[in-house]
């Protein structure tokens, strides 16, 4: 099986030997920024929860879901290194995750929590 490591730029020396890539995972600075962004997004989620005029609008739930999805993606991409790792790992996670998400949505339709009006 030809595993895909296209994310890594591999260097070759004069004899053609492969040497490891220089920067395959984030550094301390990136981790700090990620933590800061996650904290700000969590703060935003809690903040909008306490705005009564906003919680009554149709934008409230989608906004929370988008903020949550962004946080989820950031952790998976940077802390779990999925942005930098082999594509097989991505498939092993994203495949079941997608299937699980469709299962939740399907069950919500079946039990009448979500409706499509024609």
């Amino acid at each position, binding site marked *: 099986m030809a595993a895909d490591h296209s994310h890594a730029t591999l260097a070759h020396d004069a004899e053609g030997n492969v040497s490891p890539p220089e920067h395959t995972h984030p550094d301390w600075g990136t981790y700090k920024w990620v933590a800061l962004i996650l904290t700000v997004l969590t703060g935003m989620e809690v903040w909008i929860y306490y705005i009564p005029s906003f919680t009554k609008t149709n934008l409230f739930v989608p906004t929370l879901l988008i903020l*949550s999805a962004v946080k*989820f993606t950031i*952790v*998976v991409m940077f*802390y779990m290194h999925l942005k930098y790792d082999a594509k097989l790992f991505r498939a092993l996670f994203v495949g079941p995750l997608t299937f699980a998400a469709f299962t939740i949505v399907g069950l919500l339709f079946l039990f009448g929590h979500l409706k499509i009006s024609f």
Partner: protein
Amino acid sequence: MATAAIDAHDAHMGGEHPPTSTGLNNTKVAIWTFIGSECFFFASLISTYLIYRGRSPVGPFPHDAWTDPATGHVFKAILNIPVTSVSTFVLLMSSLAMVLAHSAVVRGDRRSSKIWLASTAILGATFLGFQAYEFTSFVHEGLTIHTNLFGSSFFILTGFHGAHVTAGVIWLLTLLFIDIKRGFSPDEAINVDVCALYWHFVDVVWIAIFTLVYLIK
């Protein structure tokens, strides 16, 4: 050639391993497969919670006050968002400590790896303390696993998440014990890496639970 390149990459990341058919470390393949299966597990619990949401004939309710018609007792909204927001922040910071622990092991910095592994375990235990406080206060306020559909689905969902955090804390303490006893060489960073992947997964599950259970009214 491709396998040699992958091995070189893994060696650089502290994940040197014997040749495999995929060219990838089998331990990492296993933990990602396990995490994939955990997606289904938590999806079933989350969908159960969402299906039963708003269908409890009796309170207490998560976001609204409820008056018991038989006794006239008023139950206030049960969820304590400020406390849970702090515990969410604690779990997010534990993920930061975890990546720093892994990074320290990869660099061969034994002092930092011990500090960050201990920090992650302490933050995880703090999260569990918040959860124990929350569960106890709910029971005192009249919500148990038997009270209504909300109580059953809430305690099952967050309880199973808490059990995962507990397993993660035990795993972290085991790694910390090994690190104190003999230390991890950069070649053994995969041992910390798989624990880190599990820990971050527990974190992302909480990101979903915090929004779906606590914030969406």
